[in-house]
């Protein structure tokens, strides 16, 4: 590996920063940590190409605001959002704010490293464009029913409500949901939501 692979960690929890530095160092990345969003944004436009790991919940400034400011300072820098709140609305909002991926705490090291490498290989803007096209293809492969279920899930509806509004049984909704996840090649609902949001960006663009 000729080029150093940079990872920028933004997290207010020192234990998380320290342990991530250890882990990513052991995995062969060059890690720089920032304890506050301000410290990160202060240097964001001068940073070498790499990947940002952003904690969503921080005092003073939350992750969404950091995403918004970063989009102006350095739009090419890909951001992976780390969150303890694994709920769908948060995931949707994260993706729409421009993150390339998001990961729920606690995570396995393999999942984390795979996400970082994917982000580094493609780069933010280009990567997102590719991701969006790929996501649109995947979403198109879904049946109308599966897409309806996915859209309802993205809207944050529980299975029961989806079943009621689509006139299906809860069991059938679960079947559609499971088949939909298989087709998209994802195991977590958050990933399916990410693809759905990316695909919707393709249409908007």
């Amino acid at each position, binding site marked *: 590996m000729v080029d150093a692979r940079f990872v920028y960690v933004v997290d207010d*929890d020192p*234990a*998380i920063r*320290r*342990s*991530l530095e*250890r*882990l990513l*160092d*052991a*995995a062969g990345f060059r890690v720089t940590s920032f304890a506050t969003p301000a410290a990160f944004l202060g240097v964001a436009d001068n940073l070498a190409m790499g990947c940002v790991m952003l904690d969503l919940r921080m005092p003073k400034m939350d992750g969404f605001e950091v995403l918004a400011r970063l989009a102006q300072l350095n739009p090419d820098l890909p951001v992976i959002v780390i969150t*303890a709140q694994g709920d769908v609305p948060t995931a949707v909002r994260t993706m729409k704010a421009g993150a390339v991926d998001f990961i729920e*705490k*606690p*995570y*396995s*090291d393999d999942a984390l490293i795979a996400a970082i490498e994917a982000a580094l290989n493609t780069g933010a803007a280009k990567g997102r464009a590719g991701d969006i096209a790929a996501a649109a293809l995947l979403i198109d492969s879904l049946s109308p029913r599966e897409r309806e279920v996915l859209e309802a899930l993205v809207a944050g509806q529980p299975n029961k409500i989806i079943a009621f509004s689509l006139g299906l049984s809860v069991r059938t909704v679960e079947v559609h949901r499971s088949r939909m996840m298989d087709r998209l090649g994802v195991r977590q609902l958050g990933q399916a939501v990410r693809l759905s949001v990316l695909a919707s960006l393709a249409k908007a663009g």
Partner: protein
Amino acid sequence: MLRVDELFEPQELKHCIRDLAALSTLPAIWKDYSARQIADSVAAALISMLDADVVHVSVPGLRDEAAFDVTRTGPGGSAGSLGAVERSLRDAWLGTREQVFTIDSPLGEGTLHIAAVPMGFGGNAGIIAGSFNLRFPSETHRLLLGIAASHATLAIQRWHAEGQQRRMVSLIERSSEFVGFAGLEGRVQYLNTAGCELLGLSGIDEAQRLSIFDFLSPTDRMRAHHELMPLVAASGRWLGELNFRHFKTGEDIPFLVDWFRIDDFRTGRPMNMATVSRDLRGQKKLEDNLRRLNESLEQRVSERTSELAEALERLTLEVKQRRRADVRAQELQVELIHASRLSAAGQMAGALAHELNQPLTAFTNSVNAGRRMMANSAYEVETVRDVLDEAADQALRAGEIIRRLREFVTRGETDMRIESLPDLIREASDLASAGTGAHGVQIRLSFDPRAETVLGNRIQLQQVILNLMRNAQDALADSERRELDVATAWLGDGSIEIAVADRGSGLPDDIVEHLFEPFHTTKSNGMGLGLSICRTIVEAHGGKLRYEPNFGGGAIFRVMLPVPPER
């Protein structure tokens, strides 16, 4: 004695015949006269015929008619007191009782020749005629006087008899009842005005063309003919109800009929049939009205009764609904208390999850880092040891969070005081039984007098007892013996005990192993925090929470708490 020689005088005979003829016409003239008019008429006739100077007629009282006298004087008669003349004539006659005599004239100078004849009434009735003529009375005079007296007597008697009959007829005619009589064969002879009017007949002439059976409604005709008429003929009378028929409208009119036979009072032979009948329509109408009134009264009573019954039913229903609503309200209250505790537990769990996520993430990162470092010889053991130390720190941090959380559960409510144990349990039991209408669990409380008090936080201990009792109630939901015992006991080792025992399904072994661990639950709607929090609270009070199976099925939870220090 009549002196015949005089009658042979042609003039005298001619006069006599003329007077006799005149007398014989009088009764016909008197037909419509009253008794007084008859007496006056005969007196006037005798004055003329006898050429008399005074005639006095004395008529006795008959039935309801008073006695009276009539006195007439001739054309040459004085205008003296008639009353005095009458008296002297009558006294003279009553004194002598002779038919011919003379008296000193009460009319003036001279002697009055008197002829007197009694009338057929007996007593003092009679006609007295007086004249100054010396030849009075001749045989012819006496003959005429006698015949006139006979005629007058008969006429007056007939007048009296007819007066009686007229009164009877007017009585019957004016009666409002149906009165009539008929021949024995049934031909109508008489019907009063009321009878004609009641049945629409124009008058007696029309009625006399009819048979009594024509008066009856067709339904009663046969019975009257074959049954009643023979009965009346045989026994003399029948009284009962019959329907008459109105001749114009054909309407049936009910009558109360008194049907009787009239017999000849001399021979005893039946002569007529008669009836006095009463129109019953008025009475029937009254009866109908009365019955209707009664019926409507009954109906109103029954309507009112059913209204009252309905009202009662409504009230009962309302009471039931209100009672149900009350029970529901209590249930809701209990649910609310429970929900607020659940929600507190839920918030606690949410906080727990987030707080624990941080150290767990760091811990995982560190352990994974260490694993990767150990696989890579470039890292020194020292570095790996540091990483593992960091991991251990994070594990301790997680433990610290949990300890802080447990403190939080009891924090702010560490207000410990001496409480009455029976009171505390009774309140908790009231709360537990408030919403158990559907369960119908019978709760028995028994208190050991040696375990009167406990040192602790009233709310927290009640929450423990409430929780255990609700668990027991849930366990008893499908049980046949829905009995729940809560008993206190003094254990003698410096502690007291609250035992909550049920006869429910008991607990399977795999559940018992993890009974007090958080997030283990057998309930579809449970968080699995109840017993965990209970034990935390009990332990915060320096006590213990134990489970054991109930002998013969069911569960017993024992809360053991230290005996409060003596003051």
